[in-house]
């Protein structure tokens, strides 16, 4: 940056200062949330089902895609639709270009007699957050969360331009790969990541996906082969960008005693939080994920440390040892960025399912991260797992969920993030 003028440098420093002042208050707030988690009613994931992600699903409409997934999730939990206290879904009508397609999708559940229901125009993980909130009311004990995404009917690179500022960004039709490339460049320039490391993340993801029956891309490949690919938008090559695919997923949540009735080993949500950053790309530091960090603090996944301006707030939050993490990184460079924000070191197994680089049905992949992490807690292969979901350009909004075999948040204090 030798050519940066002094005026530009000082103006940006002022931005960083403004950012940090607001961040300090938010970090204290997140820590306060984490320290009060024992006041929440215990809620657990008791079942998860996901369709196979395919490049183009046009034999089935949304309802037909969802029905087997919903039936599988309910069947695994051993309950019927009529017993559900709440239903919440996540999807985006822009993907298929059919306004109110989410209303039609309710047919997959059968909304008669009229049910308590809600929808978010976001990934299903954020619908799960709403369901978790609803289950804090002791009037209901179970919730179904489902999501579906069909990206194949439209040109997803044009459709996703619509998520940007409609005044000064969207009129240029910036596609999501181009926007992500700016973030990847910022990371490469900062020395945090190389193009080779991005390819290695793709290789690991595809390899792990070979044991996942729902993945879209699962194969062995060579590093040199990947690095020889032409750029899609430099520095992103095709392997560093999640495949476009169609799919659906469903999760059943249950609270308190009900969770123990419905699952032998429920995956208890011992912390959950989500945070959003400004929409203006130019106002953000793309080399860090402040919203993931704050959501991680709020969920009790990481302690505020030196990077958080030394926030301690006096609240003692026990940070458990994490066995694995399912991180929603639709671009290879975002996985280490999220892991860093959550203080996950090399001992934590990342994306054993193959992650978003193996299957990224839009509006579904975040909920699937929670489902995949919960599945491994329920089957005993993990005691504590972290799930993360993202929405918006360059990790604008992030949700972090801590899942554990025991209802009480706890375990050894690892001091990660300190």
């Amino acid at each position, binding site marked *: 940056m030798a050519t940066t003028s002094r005026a530009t440098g000082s103006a940006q420093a002022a931005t960083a200062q403004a950012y940090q002042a607001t961040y300090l208050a938010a970090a204290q707030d997140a820590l306060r949330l984490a320290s009060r988690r024992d006041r929440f009613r215990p809620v657990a994931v008791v079942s998860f089902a996901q369709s196979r992600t395919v490049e183009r699903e046009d034999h089935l409409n949304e309802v037909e895609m969802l029905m087997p997934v919903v039936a599988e999730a309910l069947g695994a939990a051993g309950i019927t639709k009529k017993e559900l206290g709440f239903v919440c879904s996540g999807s985006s009508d822009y993907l298929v270009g059919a306004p109110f397609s989410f209303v039609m999708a309710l047919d997959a559940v059968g909304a008669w007699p009229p049910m308590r229901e809600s929808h978010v125009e976001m990934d299903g993980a954020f619908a799960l957050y709403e369901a978790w909130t609803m289950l804090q009311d002791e009037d209901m004990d179970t919730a179904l969360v489902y999501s579906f995404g069909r990206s194949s009917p439209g040109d997803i690179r044009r459709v996703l331009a619509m998520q940007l500022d409609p005044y000064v960004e969207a009129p240029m039709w910036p596609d999501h790969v181009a926007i992500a490339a*700016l973030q990847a460049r910022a990371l490469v*320039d900062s020395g945090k990541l190389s193009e080779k490391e991005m390819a290695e993340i793709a290789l690991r993801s595809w390899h792990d996906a070979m044991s996942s029956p729902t993945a879209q891309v699962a194969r062995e490949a060579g590093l040199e082969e990947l690095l020889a690919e032409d750029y899609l938008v430099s520095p992103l090559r095709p392997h560093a960008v999640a495949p476009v695919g169609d799919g659906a997923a469903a999760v059943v949540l249950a609270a308190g005693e009900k969770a123990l009735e419905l699952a032998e080993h429920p995956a208890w949500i011992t912390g959950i939080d989500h945070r959003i950053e400004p929409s203006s790309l130019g106002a953000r530091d793309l080399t860090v994920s402040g919203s993931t960090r704050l959501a991680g603090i709020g969920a009790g996944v990481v302690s505020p440390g030196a990077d958080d301006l030394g926030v301690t707030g006096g609240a003692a939050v026990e940070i458990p040892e994490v066995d694995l993490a399912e991180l929603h990184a639709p671009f290879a460079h975002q996985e280490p960025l999220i892991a860093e924000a959550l203080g996950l070191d090399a001992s934590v197994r990342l994306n054993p399912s193959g992650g978003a680089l193996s299957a990224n049905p839009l509006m579904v992949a975040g909920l699937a991260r929670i489902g995949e992490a919960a599945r491994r807690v329920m089957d005993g292969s993990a005691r504590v797992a972290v799930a993360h979901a993202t929405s918006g350009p360059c990790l604008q909004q992030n949700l972090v969920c801590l899942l554990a075999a025991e209802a009480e948040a706890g375990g050894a204090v690892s001091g990660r993030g300190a």
Partner: protein
Amino acid sequence: MSEVTMSDPEVLRAPHVLEFPYSRSVGRDLGAFFTGLVEGRVLGASTRGSPDRVVVPAREYDPITGEDTDGLVEVGPGGVVTAWGWTDHPLEGQPLQRPFAWALVVLDGASNAILHVVDSGSHDAMSTGMRVVARFRDPAARVGSITDIECFVPEGSAPQADRAAGVEPVTVLSTPIRLDYTFSAGIAQSSFLRGLSEGRFLGQRCPRCGQVYVPPRGSCPTDGVPTTDVVELPDTGTVTTYCVVNVPFQGQAIELPYVCAQVLLDGANISFMHLIQGIPADQVRMGLRVRAVWVDRDDLVPSMESVRYFEPTGEPDAPYESYEEYL
């Protein structure tokens, strides 16, 4: 639906276009920003915070703190690239239709970057930290849009922008949106549509509750289970309810007044909307027995357009009890 294709033996597909001619009012500061672009300059807004910052594009608020801004400041037209990504394959609608770089550019005097593009000629000519300058369109071609800056170019390679004076303030931004889709009807609706092209109504029955749905969507909305039994229904039915349309509207194709009714086909458990003709509008009534009038055999298509309208059969009206459940 004349463009429907049947490349797959089971599933019907058709092009589907979403178009929105959005006009957005731009407000005080964004209005000043767009007016500035027409004039050939870039405006930011000063924050009142300490330290003072300049938010670009000008906004009434600071995107980080949400506080009000106070006063406009001219920035640029030169600046520094803080991040970039090169594309060899521009997409429809993007600012340049030749290889270019997307970039975040911090204009001189600004506190944050803006998103735009750099026309440097080649990937190798790009670098983080490089100085660039805005290349404005000709004054006559500027409309008050972010694309009034055609692109940024390496510093020294663009002439100074021609300034325009006496510019009308920009108050509205036109942002036409067009998205192209290939709509797929799925198996259940494809079966229904194919039935229409054969001059018959094909519904589906719920295996659990026995209800018959037409058009079918492949599932029972009550039980949430797949409906797979195909049921052929007669083309006679009953008007359950209706309205008389008297108000002209854009795209109106039928002479006023006309009747839109919910028709419950005999044997179906759900009604659908269609036209009632062959009877004066003021004589249409609930319980009226009707029959589908199809287009000529050669004109049948996989669409509801195969049914021109429903007309009275002349039978006595259906008793209220026979359709009250479907109101």
